């Protein structure tokens, strides 16, 4: 099983598998309290692909993402990244959390420097690198602020800069914009696509927001009833702009996904 070399033909394009989910099951508890979150999930995510996972809450979207991050073990099956099994969290898989996860005891710039600090990059160099990433999210004026002095959307941007500055191989995002108001969310989605477009890191994005999923993704997995029941390819090219959100076909896809996820 050497996925590095393995190419798959999808809609006529040659693509390399980056993440492979092999027969993944997650079961919490035992016997009477047993809760099957999902069972026998098999899926492939290609290099440079942006995949969203949508589905009802409690359906295991975040659990699946945490398993990919190595923060949770599987009950059965395994996650392979570049053919290598995931056993623990690591720098190659950056995770943007749903809650505020930036460190409140560090200033904004110190937060962005964090990953570099872990690798003992010199003070001068890491400040320089961190400042560049802060500029990327338009927060350079807030470098010396405490996180408590920022709005929710700004904290999310710091988290993006922090993860980006750490240069992971794969990006995992757990409903990162779930708690934000609509305009802030749209703003951050555009910012995310802009940042993502620079080097197109393989991304798995968990969300319950269908519009968000369609706007951002190349493919969408619908996780319901304990498995990925539908996979949908988003036909729009890139770069994408806000005009797309009101496009007729865009609405059509939203409706289709709505049908998949709505509780019957």
């Amino acid at each position: 099983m050497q996925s590095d070399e393995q190419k798959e033909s999808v809609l006529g394009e040659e693509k390399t598998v980056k993440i492979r989910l092999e027969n993944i099951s997650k079961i919490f508890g035992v016997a009477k309290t047993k809760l099957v979150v999902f069972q026998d999930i098999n899926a492939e995510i290609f290099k440079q692909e942006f995949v969203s996972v949508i589905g009802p809450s409690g359906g295991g979207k975040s659990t699946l993402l945490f398993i990919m991050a190595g923060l949770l073990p599987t009950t059965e099956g395994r996650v392979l990244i570049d053919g290598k099994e995931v056993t623990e969290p690591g720098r190659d898989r950056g995770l943007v959390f749903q809650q505020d996860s930036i460190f409140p005891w560090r200033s904004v710039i110190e937060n962005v420097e964090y990953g570099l600090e872990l690798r003992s990059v010199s003070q001068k160099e890491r400040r320089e690198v961190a400042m560049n990433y802060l500029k990327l999210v338009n927060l350079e004026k807030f470098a010396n602020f405490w996180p408590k002095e920022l709005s929710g959307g700004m904290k999310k941007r710091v988290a993006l800069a922090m993860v980006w500055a750490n240069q992971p191989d794969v990006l995992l995002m757990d409903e990162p914009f779930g708690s934000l108001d609509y305009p802030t969310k749209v703003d951050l989605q555009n910012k995310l696509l802009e940042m993502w477009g620079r080097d197109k890191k393989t991304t798995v994005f968990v969300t319950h927001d269908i519009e968000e999923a369609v706007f951002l993704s190349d493919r969408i997995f619908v996780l319901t009833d304990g498995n990925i029941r539908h996979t949908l390819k988003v036909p729009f090219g890139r770069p994408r702009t806000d005009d797309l959100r009101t496009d007729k076909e865009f609405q059509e896809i939203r409706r289709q996904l709505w049908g998949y996820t709505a509780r019957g």
Partner: protein
Amino acid sequence: MFQFRMLLSQVKSAIIGIAVIIAFWEGAAYYLKGMTPYAHIILPTIEQCLTEAIPGMAPFFWGGQGGLFQGQAGANLYLIGLLALAQNSAITVLRIISGLVWGAIVGIGTGIMMGMNDKVRKFLEPPIELIRTIPLLTLIPLFMYWFGISEIGRFLYIVYGVAVVLVINTINAIDNVPPVYKQFSLTMGASRGQVFRTVVLPAIVPGLAGGLKFALALSWALTLAAEYLNALSGLGRIVILSEIHLFTDRMIVVVVLLIIYSLVLYAAFMRFYRFVTRWMPS
């Protein structure tokens, strides 16, 4: 400017508060004087505290135990009285601070070891949970029995009391670190040791500082209690000996000093506290 005005209003209300207390005190003292010949014992006037009580401290100078002044005849008793107060104050404050500092080192150190290592925790938690329920004051006779009336006994007693409180406080602080910070740190590539150093340690500082605030008050109480029962020096010793000899004015002088010291120590601590919690959302 705004801060200055706030300070001014604080000073003003403090002055008003002190003035009210003094007025009631003097009023009551003079009222008692007209009623009973024992007024100078029940509630001495402020003048009495300043003129009689302070020279009365002279016999406590340099390890003296009250009673009659044993020094040179004709010595300036007022000055020696002040020196005696200063000397005993220094002894008491030093006991409080050294007890707090060493208690914090032992307590927080043990708490961190327990919080980081499950084996250590499983081994130490049951006995600590048990001994923390023993009221601290009941242990004074035991420490007296073990160590006699000695500095080391008092020191260990205060360290013990402070440490027990801070061990529990430290474990709670470690347990309360939100898991998302540790998870984030791990996905950024941190090792276990780095998670501890860059996440757990900074995250528990406000919790520890809160525990220290309580431990400071506790160190005061334990020091005074130890001095009442088990010391030959210090302000607590002066209070007890003055009480035995019905020198209420001397007791009042010491109590006023204790209030001042405790306010000063508390204010200094709060500066430290505000500094280490400056990043916390209010």
